[in-house]
């Protein structure tokens, strides 16, 4: 009961902060905040498959792509599509369809989940490194298809001029839903079964668990959230093209969840936040500046170098990620608070 109250209180606080940001913060900060939320969604659902279920899934970029393109192709008006599809017109019926954002987004999630279901059958015939390669392969296939199916995705030209439907409320709303769903699953009997599968799949099978079904569940559920996240991402950046969704995106997500701690949802949230904010903050090293009187030229790519160094340090000192497998609970928050502000009541001295 206490936990529920704390959770609701936390949500209220979040809503207040978002409202404050929406009204008073500049466009740039709002954008970063929105991006943080999208990455939280992506990271938390990725963690479901990799951290909690223990499968090295290297294809989330495929589902993000599918979600992004599906949502985009549905929100664009026929007139806009006419303009964008220069080389080859968009296939029917997509060329005539235009749906409100909420349905397009949902469709993006469902189509991605559908592909997740179909690919789940070949993917889960293998395990370990082979599963990694199969999912990686699928990620590449989707990207290549997006690049070549001129009549569907407009190929390398991409889709431009999307309406910026993604607000801070959409992004954080989805992030909260994702966290709630993934945590609820993790703490349920099915989550326990997934943890067991991660530990020892043979023993799990011997205990009557249909491991294929359970892994497929995690895989399809994560694909759904990837699709939704992709749709939101598309309508934040307002331009999408195939080279936006390369393996690099998967790689970034992998870094986020490893640094946060594989299997920890709160770790993924924290790490997604740090990753996105740090990524933006470190932009300054690519501008020329004056440090202690010495002019230092801006070196493009310096951001990545410093980022990688920071990552290295985190992993050296926090071998299992910032939070390991643990979750940061409300109890921990209270404990941290007490450390900073220790209670000094007369009664406690009587001990």
């Amino acid at each position, binding site marked *: 009961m206490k936990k529920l109250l704390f959770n609701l209180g936390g949500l209220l606080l979040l809503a207040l902060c978002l409202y404050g940001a929406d009204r008073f913060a500049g466009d740039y900060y709002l954008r970063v905040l929105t991006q943080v939320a999208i990455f939280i969604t992506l990271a938390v659902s990725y963690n479901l498959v990799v951290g909690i279920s223990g499968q090295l899934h290297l294809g989330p970029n495929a589902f993000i792509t599918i979600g992004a393109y599906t949502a985009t192709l549905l929100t664009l008006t026929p007139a806009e599509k006419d303009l964008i599809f220069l080389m080859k017109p968009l296939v029917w019926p997509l060329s005539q369809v235009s749906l409100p954002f909420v349905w397009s987004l949902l469709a993006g999630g469902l189509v991605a989940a559908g592909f997740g279901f179909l690919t789940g059958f070949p993917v889960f015939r293998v395990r370990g490194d082979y599963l990694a390669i199969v999912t990686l392969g699928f990620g590449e296939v989707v990207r290549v298809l997006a690049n070549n199916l001129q009549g569907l995705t407009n190929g390398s030209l991409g889709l431009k001029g999307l309406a910026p439907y993604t607000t801070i409320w959409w992004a954080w709303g989805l992030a909260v839903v994702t966290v709630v*769903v993934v945590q*609820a*699953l993790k703490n*349920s*009997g*099915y*989550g*326990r*079964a997934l*943890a*067991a599968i991660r*530990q*020892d799949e*043979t*023993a*799990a*099978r*011997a*205990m*009557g*668990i*249909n*491991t294929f079904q359970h892994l497929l*569940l995690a895989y399809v559920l994560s694909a759904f959230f990837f699709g939704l996240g992709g749709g939101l991402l598309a309508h934040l950046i307002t331009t999408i093209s195939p080279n936006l969704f390369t393996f690099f995106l998967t790689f970034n997500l992998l870094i986020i969840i490893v640094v946060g701690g594989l299997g920890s949802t709160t770790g993924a949230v924290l790490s997604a936040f740090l990753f996105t904010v740090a990524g933006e903050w470190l932009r300054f090293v690519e501008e020329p500046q004056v440090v202690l009187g010495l002019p230092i030229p801006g070196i493009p790519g310096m951001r990545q170098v410093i980022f990688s160094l920071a990552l290295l340090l985190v992993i050296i000192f926090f071998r299992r990620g910032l939070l390991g*497998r643990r979750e940061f609970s409300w109890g921990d928050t209270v404990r941290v608070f007490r450390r900073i502000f220790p209670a000094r009541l007369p009664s406690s001295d009587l001990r």
Partner: protein
Amino acid sequence: MILLETQQLGVKFGGLLALDNFNLALPTGSLYGLIGPNGAGKTTVFNLLSGFLHPSHGDMVFAGQDLQKLPPYARTLLGVARTFQNIRLFEDLSVMDNVLVGFHCRRRTAWWDGVLRLPDYRREEKEQRLRAWALLEEVDLRDAAQERAGQLPYGHQRRLEIARALATQPRLLLLDEPAAGLNPQETLELMDFLREIRARHALTLLIIEHNLRLVMNLCEHLTVLDHGLTIAAGPPPEMQKHPQVIKAYLGK
């Protein structure tokens, strides 16, 4: 009534005949033993019965059902549970969670019931938890419920593995060397324990063991394997005097 029957069961690994012509008729409620030197094929029999290995020839019938096409999880659902020679617990999970995972296969609610915490799911969870506590009480691990399974002493881990297997509500329990690593006192306790659970859970037991004292005193019937072949089968007193059994265990 015969609960489990195998007919001419055998498996080949390339040129090696790991098991051949294995015949067993396990009556319901019985406590049978499977013995033989290392490498004789005993665990192979368990792997075949539990579905982790496909036979090259022969049949396996459990409670009138042909086991051949069924994957391991389906066999457990039918009522065939096993433990492993090298303990395979879920080490990072708590003792309680290990047992709860055993109960999971008997769930009737779906994953969304779990996510939404619907009343049916809650009721099921509560019931499974109560039964888990009862099982832990039976194996005397109640106090260790929240400990990480990997941190338990060896003897406790063995008991936990049995409790977890019992959680799947089996009819047949295959125990692979349950007394391995136990001292004489613990072995005696194990013998009493096995008799108790057989009665309390209406089980049929098939045990692989090296500890001849345990096997001779506990089992109603023994099958002796050597190099994949059955060299003798019958009640323990007969096996003790059987020349080939003596030769296999003690050498010439």
